[in-house]
């Protein structure tokens, strides 16, 4: 098992490297460069040249890349080509924000969706199951910016219960903080849970046609126990994997929610980075996303191993 985990970690590093190359190549393929984007319409050839010199953009690409790689390895994320602020300072707080949001959403949605998924599996065909299946289906079937905006218009503009933007700051009171976070959290929980509920249900129902389930029935075990004890334990692997992927999404993919609720998170920063052609910034974000993904997947694998006696304690 250790061997397996270590192997995964090594593979993870390879993946990280591939990502860095990939992102580097892509960002360089983008039209226009930092200077042009930042100076925008009012850029003059001179000012562009000066800007590039100032930010070291006039050096050859490979040079830039390896420079970046070197710093990266020595833990230095470098300087934003756009703003000139250190990237760590740009990322620092946003990383925290992102993690906080992802964390809370996970804490709510994971138990919720696994619970509901199990419930749906427990009473298949009943109205609970039907409504859950259809509800989740409906939710994953509309663009999330639609859901988000819709809720803003209802809860913020029409009813005025909640603030429409998540402007969080240190001096806020807990109450205010929760109020301003309420809506983005809600939207994300909905979006993420829908997926996980479906997967949990599917996973459970898949093992339901295996002989040991029939055996349990023939032993007179209650359906509830069959699901929770016999089926669930054999489904943990895939379910955990789904959860991991959804968490990865929460860290890296929530740009729409962050934009709509003006929540200062990583995903939006990354998009800004791309739009300002801020190579080091994009690279840094990409690395973080990739790392999160890798770590989560490894955790998922470990969890799957632990849940599976065959792997946990071989003969």
């Amino acid at each position, binding site marked *: 098992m250790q061997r397996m985990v270590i192997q995964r970690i090594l593979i993870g590093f390879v993946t990280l490297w591939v990502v860095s190359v990939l992102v580097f190549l892509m960002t360089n393929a983008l039209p226009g460069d930092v200077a042009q984007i930042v100076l925008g319409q009012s850029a003059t050839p001179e000012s562009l040249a000066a800007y590039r010199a100032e930010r070291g953009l006039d050096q050859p690409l490979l040079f830039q890349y390896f420079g970046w790689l070197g710093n990266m390895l020595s833990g230095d994320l470098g300087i934003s080509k756009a703003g000139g602020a250190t990237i760590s300072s740009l990322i620092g707080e946003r990383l925290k924000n992102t993690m906080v949001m992802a964390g809370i959403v996970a804490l709510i949605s994971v138990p919720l969706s696994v619970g509901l998924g199990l419930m749906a599996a427990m009473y298949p065909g009943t109205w609970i199951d039907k409504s859950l299946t259809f509800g989740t289906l409906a939710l994953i079937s509309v663009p999330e910016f639609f859901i988000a905006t819709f809720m803003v218009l209802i809860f913020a503009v029409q009813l005025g219960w909640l603030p429409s933007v998540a402007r969080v700051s240190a001096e806020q009171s807990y109450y205010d903080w929760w109020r301003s976070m309420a809506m983005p959290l809600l939207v994300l929980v909905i979006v993420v849970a829908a997926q996980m509920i479906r997967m949990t249900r599917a996973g459970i129902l898949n093992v339901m046609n295996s002989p040991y389930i029939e*055996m349990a029935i023939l*032993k007179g075990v209650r359906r509830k126990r069959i699901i929770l004890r016999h089926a669930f334990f054999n489904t943990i692997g895939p379910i955990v994997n789904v959860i991991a992927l959804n968490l990865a999404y929460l860290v890296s993919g929530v740009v729409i929610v962050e934009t709509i609720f003006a929540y200062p998170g990583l995903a939006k920063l990354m998009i800004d980075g791309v739009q300002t052609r801020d190579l080091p910034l994009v690279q840094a974000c990409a690395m973080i996303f990739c790392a999160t993904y890798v770590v989560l997947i490894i955790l998922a694998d470990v969890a799957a191993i632990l849940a*599976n006696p065959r792997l946990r304690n071989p003969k």
Partner: protein
Amino acid sequence: MAELFEIDNLQIQARKEDGTPIPIVKGVSFKVKAGQVVALIGESGSGKSTISMATMAYCRPGLEFPGGEVRLHGEDVLSMDPQDQRELRGNKVAYLAQSAAATFNPAITIGEQVTEAAVLHGTLTQEEANKRAVELYHALELPDPERLGRRYPHQVSGGQLQRLMAAMALVSRPDLLVLDEPTTALDVTTQIEVLKAFKKVIQDEGSAAIYVTHDLAVVAQIADHIVVLYSGEVQEQGPVEQIINNPKHPYTKRLMAAVKPTPKAGMGELLSDQHDRDELNVEVKNMTAGYGGIVNGKPVITVLRDINVKIKNSHVVGVIGESGCGKSTLARVIAGLLPAAKGDVFLDGKKLERSLKNRSQEELQKIQFVYQMADTALNPRQVIGDILGRPLEFYRGIKGRERREEVAKLLDLVELPSDFESRYPSELSGGQKQRVNMARALAANPEIMLCDEVTSALDSIVSSNVIKLLKKLRDKTGVSFVFISHDLSTVGSFADEIVVLYAGRVVEQGPVDEVLAPPYHPYTRLLISSVPELRVGWLEDTMKKREMAVGIARGVEITDTGCPFYNRCPIAIDGTCDREVAPTREPSPDHFISCHRTMEEIKQIEENPQQILHGFEKPAPDGAKTVAT
């Protein structure tokens, strides 16, 4: 008073797409008295398993009970409300499924699964249940009963799981025990061990039982009353002696005919002498093979050690041994599916490349492999026509109409109607699939066919048919066969030579009549006496034999030094057998036995078995006790 259990005109049916019913069980009735073991016997598809589940008012999805009653203590369980039915299952009526490996939940400890039913139904507290489980482990002669409960299913052997199933069924002292083909999937030696255990506990517990199987010989050992089923109808039923000794119904006779005879010299009809062309077809020279890459000349996991086998043209070589002894591996090495680590394979005197990637197409064509499981060997997405047509096209470039004709010929050769050409494997029965499986090999018109356990997954009747077919093919085509099986009598019935493998080594090999006649290698002896005979009380008798006692009690241990059979051998010489590799003796030409005992010694022992030394006294190999010889 009412019978303990009674099935009265039970009917079970499935439905077609359009809803028209397909009857599966057509009005079956029989009784089970307290403490009685009733056997349901019939081939697969006869509805016996379906009936066995009906005893718990359960039927697989898609089936339904249109009529009839299933009465326990005079009360119809079919009409009970689900709640009560649930209370019944695993409590009053307990079920043992065919494949324990599949029916044990891999994620839950054995202990919990065994005790679950009793605890859930509130018949026992967890503690009591655990105690009782341990008692049962003892009764079932399971190793290390105290700690067994804490282990997981994958950590114990197949035979043990099968017995654990019994424990699981018995833990809540059911009134009725339902055993669904509990020994079919097992090796002969394991089968006996399990049978013995079952019989014992059933007697001790005094609970009634329904024993479902297709093998009369097994039934004879355990049942009091037999119900013969064919396609959902009772053909004949009666006390075991009556059915065994004078079967009335032709179908019962047929079942009798399918029972395997005790392997003995001259059992098979040797056709080799008819077309005796003695040139070698395939030869395997001191070959060693295994898995997990090769480390300094030998594989990480060595499965076969310097094997030598000669296969003459249009001869049949039977390879037998318990599962895990490497008999399949041998075939795979010949076929090139598994490159040997050492040694070589010769085809018509020409040395073959070890890996099939490097073998010429014509070499591939000459050696054909027939897989054990027709289900996995036939591509479910191809119709029979294509499955058989492809080799024709690939090797012999036969296309179009000609191809269809060839396919028809092949189907005819394996006694299948030619309209099967357009069917998918899933639409065929097990036996039919196996025939197609062989037809595909024939399509290549090979020189040699390697048949890996082709009958072991089949019913006695079906498999006896398949054997007949094989004999016929051998005569018609003159193809040579390597026939791999764990069942000595099947092999004995039509092999020319026999190779007995044990733990990856050849312990005995030679012409069939030599091998099946004294002097035996102790292991061959064990195999021979493990084949159930169709007579009541056989089980008890064999178990009295001491070599059985030892042979059954212990399992295979793969050893690097000494004779691998040492730990199960009743006549082993401590200090010698466990240390030195056994010498190969040649009692008669081409007949080899590798044993430390001289042929004379073995002959003596055969004459009066009581001379067998330390049958039981013999401790586990470690505490070696020197014995005068």
